[in-house]
């Protein structure tokens, strides 16, 4: 098993190190790091803007670049949290708690240094996990018929909507809304136009870029306009020499880093629990098992190392269900899955064997990308810190331009720009009603495949619904669904202590003017 993995990985490095692919990987992590630093821009909006520009490219460099944006943004997001106490990227919100006090004590550089080490350790473990686990999952998934695929998607959708932030009921409602938006367009089997209201442009369905940029671009700008405080740059002065942590700090951070990494990789495997949850859970755990819990919140180096390691390990692990089963765990993965489909690649267990270049090339590029990010972040830290001071009033108008031209470039069609604007306004109304937009995208991407498999499995069973319970694997997935629902009802009725503790930590995180730029 290990020898095949090494052979495959060797092949992957061959793909990822082709100059063309390497260049796009570099471009991806660079753009990712940039938007990670800029408050108010998230990986979802950025990937959506870049997506139409990849249409003319080969699928391999396109996917390498778009993925690079995602993990690159995680490196930048931590800088924002630690130096400015501004949790503009939810996975790094918890890092503010100890990162900013460290900055105030003049140890911001050390915190950043530890973050980069933790990030690299976490990411490396996440990648290794993917190398060994993905082929194993594929072996299992190849046995799946339409009924199993259907039940598995149901687990993904339910977990994605109930485990994310906010009310689980509202999450489910948003997922169903996303599934309905996915129905817009001509029916695959009969060609019947559905929910098109006579608009010809809608016959091909709603554009994924329009949906993502409306919900995570325009709605976001409407939410944060004139609502952002001016950034306090008082403490944000860091040089390269500050970034090397002392031996004592490293010793303190070592075990929290390992524990964070393991927790993060576990969270990545449970659909619906992305990096944000991983970081909160690991911070809570670390505080609990620490011998000196009172140091947390006042600049404990462990409080930076642990959540950062878990975020990065979870970010890389997030790719596992997406690439091996075709079931995305969160918004960014849903978008990447959409990108694969646009490039003519059918997601699912056959991806690894049919498109080995994409899969192994991607894994190799993760490593190359992470090394590039470490190189980018250590000597260039001064530049990133400078970028932090760009005021929001310059950022959002420029971002609006990218949104408009990005959507236009997808089809060279002005109708799409209007569609994005319409979705954006609806998105803002939903945001004000306390609905989180993330599950919509998840439902939208999975919707058509869910309907297709649902129809097919009932066609095979001649309309017998028990087919979903008679088949053991499918029954197992449905059981997980039931457990998820029962757990939610239990939490609602009993309010267990663990959840309360996590809420308490969440309440300590400084309020962010940006709502949901990245899930």
């Amino acid at each position: 098993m290990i020898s095949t993995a090494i052979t495959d990985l060797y092949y992957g490095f061959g793909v990822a190190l082709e100059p063309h692919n390497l260049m796009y990987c570099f471009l991806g992590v660079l753009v990712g790091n940039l938007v990670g630093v800029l408050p108010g821009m998230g990986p979802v909006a950025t990937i959506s803007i870049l997506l139409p520009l990849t249409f003319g490219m080969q699928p391999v460099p396109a996917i390498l670049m778009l993925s690079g944006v995602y993990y690159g943004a995680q490196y930048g997001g931590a800088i924002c949290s630690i130096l400015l106490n501004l949790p503009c990227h939810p996975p790094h919100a918890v890092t503010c708690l100890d990162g900013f006090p460290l900055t105030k004590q003049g140890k911001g550089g050390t915190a950043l240094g530890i973050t980069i080490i933790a990030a690299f350790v976490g990411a490396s473990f996440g990648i290794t996990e993917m190398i060994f686990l993905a082929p194993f999952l594929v072996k299992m998934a190849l046995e799946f018929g339409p009924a199993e695929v259907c039940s598995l998607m149901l687990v993904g959708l339910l977990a994605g909507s109930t485990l994310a932030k906010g009310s689980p009921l509202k999450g489910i409602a948003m997922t169903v809304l996303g599934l309905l938006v996915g129905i817009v367009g001509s029916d695959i089997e009969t060609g019947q136009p559905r929910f098109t209201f006579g608009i010809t442009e809608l016959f091909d369905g709603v554009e994924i870029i329009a949906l993502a940029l409306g919900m995570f671009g325009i709605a976001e700008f409407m939410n944060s306009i004139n609502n952002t405080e001016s950034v306090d740059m008082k403490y944000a002065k860091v040089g390269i020499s500050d970034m090397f942590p002392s031996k004592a700090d490293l010793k303190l951070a070592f075990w929290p880093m390992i524990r964070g990494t393991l927790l993060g990789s576990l969270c990545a495997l449970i659909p619906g629990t992305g990096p944000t949850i991983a970081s909160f859970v690991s911070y809570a755990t670390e505080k609990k098992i620490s011998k000196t819990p009172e140091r947390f919140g006042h600049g404990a180096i462990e409080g930076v190392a642990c959540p950062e390691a878990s975020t990065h390990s979870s970010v890389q692990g997030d790719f596992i269900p997406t690439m091996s089963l075709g079931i995305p765990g969160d918004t960014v993965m849903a978008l990447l899955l959409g990108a694969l489909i646009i490039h003519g690649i059918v997601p699912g267990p056959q991806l690894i064997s049919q498109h080995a270049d994409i899969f192994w090339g991607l894994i190799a590029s993760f490593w190359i990308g992470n090394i590039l990010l470490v190189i980018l972040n250590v000597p260039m830290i001064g530049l990133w810190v400078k970028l932090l001071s760009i005021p929001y009033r310059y950022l959002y108008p420029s971002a609006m331009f990218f949104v408009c031209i990005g959507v236009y470039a997808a089809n060279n069609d002005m109708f799409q720009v209007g569609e994005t604007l319409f979705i954006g306004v609806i998105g803002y109304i939903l945001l004000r009603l306390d609905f989180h937009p993330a599950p919509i995208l998840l439902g939208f991407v999975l919707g058509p495949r869910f309907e297709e498999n649902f129809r097919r499995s009932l066609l095979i069973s001649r309309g017998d619904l028990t087919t979903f319970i008679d088949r053991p694997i499918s029954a197992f997935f449905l059981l997980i669904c039931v457990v998820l629902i029962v757990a939610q009802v239990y939490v609602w009725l009993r309010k267990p202590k663990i959840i309360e503790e996590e809420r308490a930590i969440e309440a300590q995180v400084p309020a962010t003017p940006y709502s949901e730029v990245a899930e």
Partner: protein
Amino acid sequence: MIPGDTPLQERLKLKRDYYAGALMLVLGVGAAIIGSGYKIGTLARMGPGFMPVMLGVTLAFMGLLIAGTALASSEPDEGRFMPDNPQWFGWLCIIGGPVLFIILGQYGGMIPAVFACVFVCALGDKTGTVKTSAVLAAGVTVFGVLLFHYLLNIPFPLLRGFNL
């Protein structure tokens, strides 16, 4: 399940979740009604209307649950639909930018479309003046033309009627 310590009148006071539930109910019922206009078919041979009706009914049910749990909960809801300081002008500018982009892009070309879009959006910020917005818009236009027209070659004439 309903806690007895809060009187019903208190709980009936309009909460944000009632609007949220009602919106989902309306959307769900709407989807189900439109969906039932397509052929529904049987379980074994589903028509194009089956999924829309099923999802519509589910969404309507979720709407009822959202409003119902808000009614059952005794916790006061601090959230309001309207933000504390509504930014009507800012919102108008953000919506106006893409509208101008569409109109000017269709009839004028890329340069006026980009300039107008960024200029109007930038005016929405309370510290934005005509001058700073114009400077920003000009900068973004130059950058945008270089990147999208000359480097990426997207088919979008710079100025319609002129061969630039």
